[in-house]
């Protein structure tokens, strides 16, 4: 690892540990890192949106290589979305906020027109068809594929009972109560699967950070003497902070108990 990369990685390690320190308690290191993150992310996103959105798709098309004061030289009709975009800024005025409803209405109208037919097709019709469309063909119980038939039955029971749980036009008593109960169990299994995946996702993020810190330590130890020294100084500083916190905690305890 070269020195430039090592220095940036060291800063990354410091920021990572600062964020993790919040798990112990709120502290100035965490607050600094949080503010830094918000600032950097906002700056980065603004620049990305400017250079990838506004500049190539609006400004460059209105002014195609001519001076800025020639407003009609390029594709003048791009002024229409440009003005609609500017009208959004009226949100900040209490009196004139109604003007911003026009671009919002325009945007929602286009989105609805594009989305509704496709959403209906893809999220409702396709899903219904895949569950019930080829029911008899899918219900196969051969020696090699008996499990697919069983799965099909579980899916159908799950869909129907899960939907019934949200059907409140009949009281959930007797047989209907039983169906709704199966439905809630199916829903809980679904939530359980999501929860399991979520835990895996969160642990994955933590593991990756630990891998990052480990790689930094390895790079420091395998690098030049200066890099090894930085890793050691960093580690000792961390240890010192932990020790100071432990001492502070011990010193504080009797006073707390007295209260």
């Amino acid at each position, binding site marked *: 690892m070269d020195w430039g990369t090592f220095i940036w990685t060291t800063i990354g390690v410091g920021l990572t540990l600062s964020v993790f320190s919040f798990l112990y308690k709120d502290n100035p290191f965490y607050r600094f890192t949080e503010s830094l993150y918000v600032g950097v992310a906002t700056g980065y996103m603004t620049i990305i949106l400017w250079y990838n959105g506004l500049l190539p798709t609006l400004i460059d098309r209105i002014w195609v290589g001519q001076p800025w004061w020639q407003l009609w030289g390029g594709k003048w009709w791009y002024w229409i979305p440009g003005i609609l975009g500017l009208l959004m800024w009226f949100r900040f005025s209490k009196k004139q906020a109604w003007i911003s409803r026009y671009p919002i209405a325009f945007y929602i109208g286009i989105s609805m027109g594009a989305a509704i037919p496709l*959403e209906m097709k893809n999220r409702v019709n396709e899903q219904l068809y895949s569950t019930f469309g080829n029911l008899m063909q899918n219900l196969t119980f051969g020696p090699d594929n008996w499990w697919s038939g069983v799965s099909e039955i579980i899916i159908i029971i799950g869909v129907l009972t899960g939907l019934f749980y949200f059907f409140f036009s009949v009281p959930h008593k007797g047989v209907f109560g039983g169906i709704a109960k199966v439905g809630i169990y199916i829903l809980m299994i679904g939530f359980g699967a*999501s929860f399991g*995946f979520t*835990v*895996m996702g969160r642990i*994955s*993020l933590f593991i990756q950070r*630990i891998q990052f810190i480990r790689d930094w330590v390895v790079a420091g130890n395998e690098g030049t003497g200066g890099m090894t020294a930085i890793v050691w100084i960093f580690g000792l500083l961390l240890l010192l902070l932990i020790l100071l916190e432990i001492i502070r905690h011990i010193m504080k305890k009797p006073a707390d108990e007295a209260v």
Partner: protein
Amino acid sequence: MNFFEKLAKLDRRWVFLILAAVVVITLLVDVKTSIRVDKEVRSVYDFMESLKPGDYIQMSIDYDPGSMAEMHPMTYAILEQAFKKDLKVVITALSINGPGMAEQAILDIMDSVQILYGKKIVYGEDVVFLGYKPYPGIVILSMGQNYRISYPQDYYNTPVDDLPIMHNIINYDDMKGIILITGTSGVDFWISYANGRYNAPLAVGLTGVMAADYYPYLKSGQIFGLMGGMLGAAEYEILVNKPGPAMEAMKVQVWAHIIIILFIIIGNIGYFASRRKGGVQ
């Protein structure tokens, strides 16, 4: 207060500390773990293997550094497989932080493929990075007509028609398939617009948090493959026979999950013990 009641009221910071210790120790110790490859991951691999040199695929790298841990191993494994097979890869990034992720992956894999397999990947001939454009739904719809509507230039401001890789492609019809590696809800746009409207074959690599929600689309055939979180990435690393960071992370995952399950059991025992005594309602 008995033992389990005390455990149920344990300061959560002890849980964090124990979990951190388990993660660090299992990462440092050489622990073996076996992973079974599921068919939804294998179908992505089989699709890639079925392609011939010169075939086009599109990859959309729609995640940010927050999901990098799960997503990067998938991107690296698939991109390397594509370059090894001499496929032509068109890359987009429809998440605002995606360009940084995509560029890092492209440059790293171009280097590693040259070092490991002696293949020189030429930008503009073998791979192109079209970059980020806002409003994924509109961009996905426009690419179905012509890539040039949303992307007259690539990420580096080169007109796409100046790049040899773009000479033979107009829209999704020229792609053998699209592989999304995504940590955003943009996947819904891809399914609804790219597959629903243009019948583009889609496979998805998702964060663990999202994965369970997209299994119904496998059954309906709207996506032909799914890699879920770190496990999906590890399974793909097994398939390409190149264990990497995801495989290493999975051995830790196993022990971390055991610890979490233990804490859940202890917490529940403590809860029920307290309730029996009328403590916690």
